[in-house]
């Protein structure tokens, strides 16, 4: 067996999940080693229980690893383990990392900003509308949307992202071949065909079990740079996700709601506790591009630098399209965004003379690239 096969074996033993894997791998660093060790020994070390011991013995004898992997490939599912080259670096760095991933479609591009969107399944009209809008505007702005494909906020966010023409990724609490809830079938395929991906750490065919959802949410927060909580009740699973996100060092934002709305109580409390407040997707978009995306670890940097040239030739969509402009106009155009910026601010930022800035602004407006929203205050037209 090769390394991938050992990993596949270890991750596909019924009854052995995250907690046990973590114990095993902390004592014996490679799956191959675990494979070779006598089950009795593992039992003695207290790493597995009686039931898991027999499951291990059973899988060693009966599991056709290479056949299963071939089957995956036929279905278009990729199996990534902790030591795979493509395994997301971001997930390796979270406190409770997954050891393998099943993937349909693509993984989020670590170079492009990504935002996780979570919230209640039983959401309000307001929550739905806002999730759709945030998904749409952020995706249109080139941001990758990561959600959970559950009913409610998750699926609406993904739909929004697709409507914005962007890429969206769904992390499932079941096997990647189990579509739950079933009405999301259409959305599921649209995510894949639009260049996004379906991701899960659970073996194929795993049925959704309630306790897996919060756990799956640690991957949502793990894959994103910022986590948006659209709606949450005071005590809800969503808040567990928030705790993961904070442990992982992600920025957490919450959508404010009316204090009388049960569905917003969790969010409002988070804001009170210091979470970022979501005022508008445009605002957030601006913040995302102003602030550099969190540092990419060196390993990934090297890899992406190698890919750089290939990426350019394939004409990958840049986060924001830049019209071809004269350099003086470009300088100003780049500074503008969705939020109104005044001529005075532009003068200060460009260090150009007031008359030069004034005429450049007038020209950009005549070209239909920017719009005056209040006297001498401009926004970019997207």
């Amino acid at each position: 067996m090769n390394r991938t096969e050992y990993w596949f074996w270890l991750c596909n033993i019924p009854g052995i999940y995250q907690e046990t894997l973590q114990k095993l791998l902390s004592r014996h660093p490679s799956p191959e080693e675990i494979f070779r060790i006598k089950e009795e020994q593992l039992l003695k070390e207290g790493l597995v229980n009686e039931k898991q011991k027999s499951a291990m013995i059973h899988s060693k004898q009966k599991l056709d690893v290479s056949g299963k992997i071939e089957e995956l490939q036929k279905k278009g599912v990729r199996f990534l383990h902790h030591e795979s080259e493509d395994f997301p670096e971001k997930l390796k760095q979270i406190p409770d990392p997954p050891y393998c991933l099943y993937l349909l479609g693509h993984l989020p591009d670590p170079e492009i900003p990504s935002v996780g969107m979570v919230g209640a399944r039983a959401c309000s009209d307001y929550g739905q509308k806002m999730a759709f809008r945030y998904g749409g505007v952020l995706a249109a702005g080139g941001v990758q949307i990561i959600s959970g494909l559950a009913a409610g906020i998750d699926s609406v966010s993904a739909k929004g992202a697709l409507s914005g023409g962007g890429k969206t990724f769904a992390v499932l609490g079941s096997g990647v071949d189990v579509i739950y809830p079933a009405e999301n079938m259409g959305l599921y395929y649209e995510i894949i065909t639009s260049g996004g991906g379906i991701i899960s750490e659970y073996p194929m065919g795993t049925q959704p079990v309630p306790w897996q959802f919060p756990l799956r949410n640690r991957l949502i927060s793990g894959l994103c740079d910022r986590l948006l909580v659209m709606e949450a009740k005071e005590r809800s699973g969503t808040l567990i996700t928030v705790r993961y996100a904070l442990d992982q060092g992600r920025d957490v934002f919450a959508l404010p709601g009316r204090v009388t709305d049960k569905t917003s109580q969790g969010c409002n409390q988070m804001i009170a506790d210091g979470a970022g407040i979501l005022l508008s997707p445009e605002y957030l978009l601006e913040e995302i591009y102003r602030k550099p995306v969190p540092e990419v670890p060196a390993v990934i940097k090297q890899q992406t630098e190698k890919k750089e040239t290939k990426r350019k030739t394939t004409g990958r969509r840049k986060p924001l399209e830049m019209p071809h402009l004269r350099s003086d106009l470009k300088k100003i155009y780049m500074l503008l965004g969705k939020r109104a910026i005044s001529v005075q601010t532009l003068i200060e930022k460009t260090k150009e003379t007031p008359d030069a800035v004034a005429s450049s602004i007038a020209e950009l407006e005549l070209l239909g690239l920017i719009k005056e929203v209040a006297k001498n205050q401009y926004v970019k037209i997207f």
Partner: protein
Amino acid sequence: MFCSVYSAAVCGVEPQMVSVEIDISGGLPAFNMVGLPSSEVREAKERVLRAIENSGYEIPSRKITINLSPANLKKTGSGFDLPIAVAFLSAIGVIDPECVQGMMLVGELSLDGSILPVNGILPIAVFAAEQGIKKLVIPEGNAFEGAYVPGIDIYGSMSLSSLVKDLKSKSLTKIEKADLQLLLEQQYLESTLDYRDVKGQEAAKRATMVAAAGFHNLLYVGPPGSGKSLMAQRIPSIINQLSPAECLEVSKIYSAAGLLKNQSLITERPFRAPHHSITSVALIGGTQAARCGEVTLAHKGILFLDEAAEFRKDTIETLRQPMEEKQIVINRASYRTVFPADFMLVMAMNPCRCGYYPDRSICNCTEAEVKKYFGKIKGPVLDRIDIHVAVEKVAIDDLKEKTKTMSSADMRESVCCAHEMQKLRFKEENIDFNSQMTNAMIKQYCELEKEARQMLNLAYDKYHLSARGYYKIIKVARTIADMEQSRLIGRKHILEAIGYRNSLLEL
């Protein structure tokens, strides 16, 4: 016995000659005043009689008739006390009538015989000199006004008794003439308001500079406390100082209105900022007493209307006539007068009712409300405003920061350069500034480069400009080009001017 001296009545700002005639004849003792005196003038009778007595002269018990001619001219003010008293004293033989022959006198008497200052001495002195009067007696308190009027001997006097004494001994002392040019230069150096102190407003300062360069009317839009007033107050500091002739012209207005303060002429361009509760009459002038309004007090200077949206709409609209004609004609039953009113109008307003649009962290105004708010100043006067510009709320650290910013002197240089260009251009025309060009003049004097023309046409289509809006852009662009001494209007000039158009109602 009969005697007459000259005096003058100021109606509005223009004085008119009045001759004060006195006749003392036999008959029942009486004191009559004829010749359309106003109630103030009628009261002169008592004041004059008491002052004469208290100065140590006796009033004969005879019939005394005083005539102020021409009879059809309404006379107001207290300046007739002195000529009446002097005519009286020469009629009764205290003063040799020879001494007061052809003399003009103006001044109010207090009951103890001292001579009190009156309004309007400066226009009277200028007028007297023009009329060929050789000698003018004015109150000592108004002496500084007399000092700057050439071509006439002016005497200042403290009291009736000292005046009589000096007349008798022919030892009146002339007020020494002063050099107006020198005064202006001194005062100019002392002006304290400077744009150097307004930081972080480069965009608004630039627009202000363009406005001053072409005498374009200006509108500032900005949140409360953003320094719109600071900006406006400093406009005089970037315009050429008043010429001696202008100084006299403006000082005459202030003299007539009794507003010459601190014993000095008006040496700086006026800056008038009436409150928004002002009435139409106080704004444009024309009360019963022929007082001038704020528009006239702003002559050759700036009329600043802060909180423009708070003014009564009909009050603002009264500005239309003076803005078009550079003067205001007042017709009342009792008088008709013309006040000069050549001012630059500067208005300031908040961007919305609460003042903070488009800062959504504070402003909750809906778009409709914002539009409605701008609608408040919509009208013919707004149409005459060429430059609209935003004034920012400056962050505190900007105020502290010692960033380099344009000073008034820097700005004045460009402004003066543009003024020179305009002087040359309009030497054959009856206007001084680009803002006053008619459409025919625009066609004659504003040549656009090809690219500039294209940009303007693009803007015309895109912003659905009116013909007036179209011409306004050209006028402003002409001024911007003048600031750079450019004969042709280039692309850059047109573009900048497009940015200053009234975009408030397009939003």
